[in-house]
């Protein structure tokens, strides 16, 4: 598949920033991490802590591969697997009606509950990484570099905005209920 190198670059940068931020958030909240994984109720409880750290390591590898461009196809596949895996875990819990649990995104100070919007977000992110499965972009011009890096950074900032707005939506609903 021939994709413009700027699009592939944007995808790489977005993915690398996203997973780097995810790792940072998880390490910062490492005390809650196992509890969040256990809350998904997909694994036996004693597996929660090892699974949590496995996720952190895999996210780290994905971020490094996307950023540096080494084993790019494998890194992109790993990143997509993680995104789809998280979406599945959230989907199973939404189907069980457990939407009140924290998603574990650690994006904002506010707790972020599960919602179909998060599933859609993960699906879109995974789709953006598809061009990278064919391997790295080659021979990008200067203009394509500027476009790729600019679009990647802008997309990452917008991704953060989306996360913030999603948690705001929940907390404003909660406030309305409390003051009613």
């Amino acid at each position, binding site marked *: 598949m021939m994709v413009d190198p700027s699009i592939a670059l944007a995808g790489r940068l977005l993915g690398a920033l996203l997973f780097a931020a995810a790792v940072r958030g998880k390490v910062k909240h490492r005390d809650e991490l196992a509890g969040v994984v256990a809350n998904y109720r997909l694994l036996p409880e004693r597996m929660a802590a090892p699974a949590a750290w496995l996720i952190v390591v895999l996210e780290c590898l994905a971020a490094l591969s996307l950023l540096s461009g080494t084993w790019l196809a494998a890194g992109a596949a790993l990143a997509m697997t993680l995104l789809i895996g998280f979406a599945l875990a959230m989907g199973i819990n939404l189907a069980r009606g457990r939407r009140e649990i924290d998603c574990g995104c650690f994006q904002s100070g506010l707790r972020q509950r599960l919602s179909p919007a998060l599933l859609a977000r993960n699906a879109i992110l995974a789709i953006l990484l598809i061009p990278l499965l064919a391997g790295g972009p080659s021979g990008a011009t200067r203009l394509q570099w500027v476009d790729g890096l600019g679009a990647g950074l802008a997309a990452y900032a*917008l991704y953060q*905005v989306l996360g913030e707005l999603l948690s*705001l939506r929940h907390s404003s609903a909660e406030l309305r209920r*409390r003051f009613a």
Partner: protein
Amino acid sequence: MLFVSQAMLWLAIIALAAAVLALARQVGVLHERIAPVGALALGRGPQTGESAPRLTVRNLAGSTVEIGGPLPSGPLRLLFFVSPTCPICKSLLPTVKAFAESERLRLLLVGDGDAKEQRQMVERHGIELERFANAPEVGRAFQVAKLPYAVLIGADGVIAAQGLVNSREHLESLVTAYELGLRSVQEYLAQRASHSA
């Protein structure tokens, strides 16, 4: 040069996105501040201002404890309803213990369930066995529907304040409500709204 103008456009877009992000964060911070910090009263059972139900129960040490009724010149009494199956109850136990000591409240933890598990929970948190009663009838008398629930009883045996508590601030709000003569966080908010209107 095309790529310079392109770079400038991207910079502008990124700066705008960052500004929107900062605004959204700020709204989030406001939301956290606005959230009322206070124990939420659930309008069931004996109300604040009414006499607390009088019961005699047995604590884990085996002696009897009186709940309700006047206790002239005695301290305020704090009933704290907990369960070993409620994670937030367990995380609040050390706070409640320290809070009761610093406010000089007579604390009684009330549980409803398996005596062995309750005893383990109490021992793990270093709470004296006299301070814990496993007595479902107390929860029924106060109609406690959600845990952890706290009831503050005055020296005259009247319920001074009560509500669902999730943090030290909520516990403090009970004592503050008692001192201000307010019945619940809802009443406080209503009063504040009528002042500002």
